[in-house]
């Protein structure tokens, strides 16, 4: 059984969270009594086979969905990034970012200035007038990141945001994300199915079991930053985590 104590110092706390979709014999249990606490400024990666409820967890923390049982506490504002950039195609890159500021009630003059700053932060200064379809996949995710930052959130939820990008583009974006989350002291919950990516980025990697999702094991990442995704220590820890995942999968007979 999980403990239901909520630590004051944590930015995100899940206490005994369960989620069941549907009812009766066709009901699917996506999460089973998951407890997890993320400290402010901590970068936590969630990893597991498909169907382990990773995305469900993020939806619950984001407040897009409600847990069937258990408690979720989040301190501060939450922003979310998806696997798709989810930019509004009828707006320019700049207007996409600006709309997030507008939704928060930021005034017109300040909006313009902040939009420029945010695009600079994601290395897209001068691309504000382009429409999403005129940008490459990596650039679109940068705009999505700028839009998430525009929400001035304390907690950033990322649902496989780099899953659709090629390895080189992803590497570049890893560096950017490292820099930005450090500068802004963001708390990040990062879902991925790429073990090396998790070790490259995370302060901690949480391995989830599948159907129903439970916290299987947590691996603190003690490798000093900056890390390279292809460095030996990253590969070694990633190997251990992969072994643990394999073990879990074979137990399920998958």
């Amino acid at each position, binding site marked *: 059984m999980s403990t239901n104590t909520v630590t004051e110092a944590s930015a995100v706390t899940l206490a005994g969270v369960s989620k069941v979709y549907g009812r009766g014999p066709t009901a699917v249990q996506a999460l089973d009594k998951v407890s997890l606490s993320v400290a402010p400024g901590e970068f936590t990666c969630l990893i597991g086979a498909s169907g382990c409820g990773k995305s469900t967890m993020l939806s619950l923390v*984001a407040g*897009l969905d409600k847990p069937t049982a258990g408690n979720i506490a989040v301190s501060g504002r*939450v*922003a*979310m990034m*998806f696997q*798709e950039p*989810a930019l*509004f*195609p*009828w*707006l320019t890159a700049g207007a996409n970012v600006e*709309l*997030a500021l*507008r*939704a*928060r009630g930021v005034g017109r003059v300040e909006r313009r200035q902040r939009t420029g700053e945010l695009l*600079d932060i994601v*290395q897209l*200064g*001068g*691309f504000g*007038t*382009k*429409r*999403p*379809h*005129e*940008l*490459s*996949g*990596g*650039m679109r995710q940068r705009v999505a990141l700028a*839009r998430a930052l525009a*929400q001035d959130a304390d907690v950033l939820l990322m649902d496989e945001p780099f899953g659709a*990008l*090629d*390895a*080189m*583009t*992803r*590497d*570049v*974006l890893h*560096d*950017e994300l490292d820099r930005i989350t450090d500068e802004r002291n963001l708390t990040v919950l990062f879902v991925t199915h790429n073990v090396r990516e998790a070790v490259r980025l995370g302060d901690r990697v949480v391995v989830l079991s599948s159907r129903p999702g439970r916290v299987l094991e947590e691996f603190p990442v003690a490798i000093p930053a900056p890390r390279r995704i292809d460095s030996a220590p990253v590969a070694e820890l990633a190997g251990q985590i992969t072994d643990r995942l394999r073990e879990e999968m074979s137990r399920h007979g998958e």
Partner: protein
Amino acid sequence: MASNDGPSFSQGTWVADGAAPAGTALAGLDALDLAGRPGGGRGRLALRLWNAFWPKVLAIALVLGIWELITLSGYKKEIFPATGPTLVNLWDQAKTGTLWQALGNTLESAVIGFAVAIVVGTVIGALVSRIYVLRAAVGSLITGLQTMPSIAWVPFAALLFGNNNGAILFLIILGAAPSIANGLITGVDYTSPLLLKAGQMMGLRRLSLWRHLIMPASLPVYVAGLKQGWAFGWRSLMAGELIVLVFNHPTLGELLNNDQSLSDLQSASAIMIVIFIIGIFVDGLFGAADKSIRRRWGLA
């Protein structure tokens, strides 16, 4: 895209403004993706117009050719309108005031009726798409109205409003509004759930969600609904004008009706050409609107 003043997609731009370490600013593999991308069709205006123009000229030539072939074949020679004389007839009618007066009256009805239909259809569509109970009750009713032939409404409208322009406007609105409402409802339904989630995370709620996300997201389907609404409205208008004859108010439909009474197939054909041209012209306007939206979205 007409704006040519934005920065170009060259690597140089990147490195120049990149404060990033070791010039790796954007050096993902997908930067290559941009290099080969054309800057969008910025052909010269004259060339673009010509490209849009010549297929239409070809189509007209084709129609005239087939028509002339039928004329030459001698099919129902006594009454079938020959190509040349019909065009001359059209020219002669254009020199009299009646055709222009009729055209003016018909277009006035079309514009007023369609404008009202846009308002009515949009308001109904917006309400039905957002209010669940209304959708269950009214949703299938709208589709029913849409499929009902407008000519079936003519006796109803004529008896209710009498032989005046009100009856004709009623027919246009009834013809156009259901398609417009349905277009909006479908557009709202097809708003991507992912974008809705993103909007929700950004803090868009109710009115702001509607204004900044749902309305622009449904625009393409809404415009398709407008186009269809216009087609239905225009048909209803012609049906109405043919049957509901308003005293001292000549319309294209009434001219057609007169020609039928006088067994003047040539004049009737000339009027039909006018109706046909208006239909094509308005369709072109909607086509241009649709194209501009798709270009902005990156779908064209």
